[in-house]
């Protein structure tokens, strides 16, 4: 998501599932939609069947998605950057990019400071302090004349972004890419031709990705490469185009929007820093950009504070800004947190709808860390591996001192509320059945927990009780046990203080304390649709004006916009790139179209064309992005564990990777003979995540009971392994047993002239539930992306051995 925000301004899927119907060419890379997003796959196939759309699938494994591909490319895990930069190189060399789009809507013409450079795999500004690598981004800035950035609309200036990009990607010629990725040149060329063809004005190319892209130490740069390719081909903002990050859990988009990440407040407002932001003014001055829509940030923050603290938040007391929790620069991401836990710095854990004992990297280590806790509360549907970490195999419960609590939660069908899907649609769901036994909805649990904590603070005091005591918390529904969802929804949506009506636009939010809003990007979702008489998120009208935007079905954030950056669907003068897919048209002095404008529709097209990416300060899509830690352009590095040396530079791994201490961070050497095979982890359609839910469901267990490992027929022959044999999979972190699936699902690849075997591991098993099996994450390394800290689940080294004796 960081890669998307850095490129376009928002970290969300640009288009939506139904819009896939408008695509000409799909490039599905690092996503197995058929298994992980079956309903999205439906639209891909719909476009193929109805319009003859082409499907390219890039995956190390022959997946169920690849089974439907027109071109299936088997590549080596962790080599997506060369793969994508190579397509850019091909498009530039053959002038297949969308020139007009590039000049108008992206920063291709911006001129970068002359000091900027790239050498030996590193960008200018590299610094090593106490073994900590960072970039000084001063040289990554644009030249300006004090006010405006210097540009060259001809794209000829040697230091303009386009020329720099051209030079950067020129090293990724077809042969080189083929040697790094293991993709035969012929196949790769075909991919380049097919996808680069969507650079034509009237063609829409759609890149779909998911965890195969993000779960790498350079995952953010993988996403950047995708975003850049789409900008180059002019595919953003168009129907059937976009960068479509297919998000995971049914409501993960919603939980990210609502601040699930440790560095964010609701609505993507950064968490204040304890030293950097001493008061509200300080925060506003330092964090509000001068241009772009984020210049409204103070309104969103103040409204948020009003929602949090109600009447207690006044102008005089900085709207209780001081009560907000602050970060201190330490790593509070998943791995950082578990590292601290292992080191005894974290005393208690509430695992609320999470099962890290199976899902976390180096899961065996994470289970060790849990033993150091004083207490643990698990809020879950089942007694998960996490809840039961103290009676895992080989653990003596007597030695574990942690006090554990398990609170039974209600499942999604057992409660009501909204779910935000990957396409940003906020949809209301009603309760289907009552929760069993003593299970309660998460809102109920949160409500009671908060009230009890407040009571204790009120009665017993504490170090800093004010933030708790000042909290505006009243969601009771008289006569009901469950909190009132409508009250919560209204607060998230935003309202004028003193009024009880949902605002219909975040444009109406104020920074003077007259409005309260729990999450500005959702404003409008609870406002009542006048025609249908229900809150927008409860709408169910299948009426459509032709392009599949379904504007009266649910509510899509922001402001019901279905395709983000949709100003780019038409040219400077408001003429759609493709008449048959005209999302907007400037006609008779106004915009007509099928979507809600994601731009200022009140001005003439030539003006809105100046800032089509409204969330970015300069309003232009970023081919060159200077706000990530690891470089303005993506560059190929090897995964932290790799069988080969980096063919492109001396820099073997990304210098900015997040690394940790302990056995979970042990790594194999480059080309380690002890661990010769490349392993990757993946999902299967039958199971969900850590398997807590699915491995407790008999009919889902039945359709996929056994943990297995996919190995190639060649490898099986070499090792004397037959289908169904039990094998050891060993890594530098540990070893697990699984049954061998011998199948051309995986095949050896030719990398730098060397044969490289690929091994696939699903990661859904653990030691609880009906179907038990080894946990793949006992093998994965604790290394992560420098920007997001996402672990490198998708490329590591292993060995395979047949379990001897029966």
């Amino acid at each position, binding site marked *: 998501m960081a890669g998307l925000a850095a490129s376009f301004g928002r970290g969300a899927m640009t288009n939506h599932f139904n819009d896939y119907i408008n695509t000409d060419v799909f490039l599905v890379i690092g996503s197995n939609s*058929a*298994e992980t997003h*079956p*309903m999205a*796959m*439906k639209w891909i*196939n*719909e476009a193929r*069947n109805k319009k003859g759309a082409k499907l390219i699938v890039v995956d190390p494994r*022959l*997946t*169920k*998605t*690849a*089974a*439907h591909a027109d071109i*299936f490319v088997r590549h080596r895990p962790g080599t997506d950057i060369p793969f994508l930069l190579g397509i850019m190189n091909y498009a530039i060399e053959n002038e297949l990019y969308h020139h007009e789009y590039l000049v108008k809507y992206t920063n291709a013409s911006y001129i970068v400071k002359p000091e900027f450079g790239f050498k030996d795999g590193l960008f200018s500004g590299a610094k090593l302090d106490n073994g900590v690598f960072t970039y000084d981004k001063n040289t990554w800035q644009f030249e300006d004349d004090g006010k405006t950035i210097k540009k060259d609309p001809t794209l000829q200036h040697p230091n303009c972004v386009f020329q720099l990009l051209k030079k950067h990607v020129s090293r990724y010629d077809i042969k080189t890419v083929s040697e790094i990725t293991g993709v035969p040149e012929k196949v790769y060329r075909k991919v380049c031709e097919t996808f680069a063809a969507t650079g034509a004005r009237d063609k829409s190319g759609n890149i779909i990705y998911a965890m195969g892209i993000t779960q790498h130490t350079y995952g953010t740069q993988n996403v950047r490469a995708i975003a850049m390719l789409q900008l180059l081909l002019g595919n953003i903002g168009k129907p059937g185009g976009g960068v479509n990050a297919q998000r995971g859990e049914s409501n993960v988009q919603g939980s990210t929007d609502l601040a699930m990440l440790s560095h964010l407040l609701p609505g993507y407002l950064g968490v204040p820093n304890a030293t950097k932001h001493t008061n509200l003014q300080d925060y506003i001055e330092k964090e509000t950009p001068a241009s772009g829509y984020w210049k409204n940030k103070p309104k969103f923050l103040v409204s948020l504070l009003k929602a949090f603290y109600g009447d207690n938040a006044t102008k005089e007391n900085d709207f209780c800004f001081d009560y907000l929790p602050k970060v201190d620069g330490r790593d509070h991401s998943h791995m950082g947190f578990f590292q601290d836990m292992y080191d005894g710095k974290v005393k208690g854990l509430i695992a609320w709808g999470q099962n890290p004992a199976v899902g976390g990297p180096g899961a065996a280590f994470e289970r060790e860390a849990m033993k150091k806790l004083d207490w643990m509360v698990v809020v879950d549907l089942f007694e998960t591996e996490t809840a039961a970490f103290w009676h895992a195999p080989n653990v003596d419960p007597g030695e574990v001192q942690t006090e554990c609590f398990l609170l039974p939660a209600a499942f999604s069908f057992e409660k009501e509320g909204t779910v935000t899907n990957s396409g940003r649609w906020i949809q209301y769901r009603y309760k289907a059945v009552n929760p069993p036994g003593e299970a309660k909805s998460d809102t109920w649990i949160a409500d009671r927990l908060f009230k009890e904590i407040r009571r204790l603070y009120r009665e017993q005091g504490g170090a800093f009780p004010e933030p708790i005591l000042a909290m505006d918390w009243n969601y009771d529904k008289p006569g009901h046990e469950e909190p009132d969802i409508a009250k919560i929804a209204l607060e998230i949506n935003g309202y004028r203080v003193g009024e009880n009506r949902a605002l219909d636009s975040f444009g109406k939010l104020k920074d003077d304390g007259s409005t309260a809003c729990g999450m500005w990007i959702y404003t409008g979702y609870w406002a009542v649709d006048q025609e249908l008489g229900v809150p927008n998120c409860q709408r169910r009208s299948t009426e459509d004006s032709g392009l599949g935007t379904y504007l009266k079905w649910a509510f899509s954030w922001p402001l019901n916009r279905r395709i983000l950056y949709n100003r780019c669907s038409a040219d400077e003068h408001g003429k759609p790139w493709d008449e048959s897919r005209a999302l907007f048209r400037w006609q008779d002095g106004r915009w007509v179209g099928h979507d809600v404008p994601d731009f200022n529709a009140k001005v003439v097209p030539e003006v809105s064309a100046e800032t089509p990416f409204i969330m970015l300060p300069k309003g232009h899509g970023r081919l060159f992005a200077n706000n990530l830690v690891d470089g303005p352009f993506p560059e190929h590095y090897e995964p932290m564990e790799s069988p080969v040396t980096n063919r492109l530079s001396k820099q073997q791994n990304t210098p900015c990777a997040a690394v940790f201490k302990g056995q979970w961070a042990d790594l194999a050497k480059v080309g380690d003979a002890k661990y010769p095979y490349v392993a990757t982890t993946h999902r*299967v*359609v*039958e199971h969900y995540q850590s398997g807590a839910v699915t491995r407790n469901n*008999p*009919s*889902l*267990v*039945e*359709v*996929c*009971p*056994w943990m*297995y490992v996919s190995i190639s027929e060649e490898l099986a022959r070499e090792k004397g392994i037959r*289908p*169904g044999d039990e094998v050891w999979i060993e890594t530098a972190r540990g070893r697990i047993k699984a*049954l061998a*699936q*011998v*199948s*051309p*699902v995986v095949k050896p690849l030719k990398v730098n002239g060397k044969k490289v075997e690929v091994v696939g591991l699903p990661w859904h098993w653990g030691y609880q539930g*009906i*179907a038990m099996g080894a946990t793949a994450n006992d093998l994965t390394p604790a290394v992560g992306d420098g920007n997001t800290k996402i672990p490198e689940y998708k490329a590591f080294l292993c060995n395979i051995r047949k379990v001897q004796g029966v």
Partner: protein
Amino acid sequence: MAKGVLVDLTKCIGCKGCQTACKQWNDLPATIPDFDNNLTYPADTDAYNYTTVLHRVVEKEDGQETLRFAKRQCMHCQEPTCVTVCFSRALVKSPEGAIVYDEEKCVGCRYCIIACPFQVPKYEWNDALKPVVSKCQFCFDPRGKHDRIGHGMEPACVNACPSRALKFGDRDELLKEARQRISSDSKYVNHIYGEKEAGGTNWLYISDVPFEKLGFRTDVSQTPLPYYVHDYLKWTPTVFLGGGALFAALHFYTKRRNEVARAVEKEEVAE
């Protein structure tokens, strides 16, 4: 009007949604099947799975492997061998063309199992006292509990399919549609599986991979097997009535002849 389902294997993504929907709708218990290298679980339909989605690695024309998935279940034959051979009418054909089993009438002889040309019916071997023959009922239940078709709904599996690989409708219409799909897209092999097999089935399949590669029997007799049986059984009355008459005649004739012969003997002796 015979109802049917058109299964378009080019659209199936192997999600097993149909399989689990069938299980839920029909209240079938779950088991833990053995490991299968194709990840087809269970590897074949069984007592508790009316349907299973076969997973197969197949080679394309260019020599590259790919995956294909095929939901298997009772084909609902137009001339069902199982119905013909069932001697207690536990298997019957509904007016809609569904072949429906009624456990109350079943003797458990398993003739239907050996007779089905598609090896569909499966036996509940492990049940000691009330073992049933198990097969897809086309969501048709004369007793009501699991009935969908009778209530004007489409089958549970069809309803669950996210990729429109399954289409429910009148067989004639589906056949037309299948022909149309095949002729409008060269990827299909020119074979509607079930159009002629076993004399025609209500479930029809089209595919871009030859059916034998997916483990479908392509040598199924096109003459419905029940024809052979009828052909034989039609002689039954003749045999019984004709034979009965003949034997009666012979009996009395030979008896009389013997008596006469004996009488003659006696006379001769007397003489």
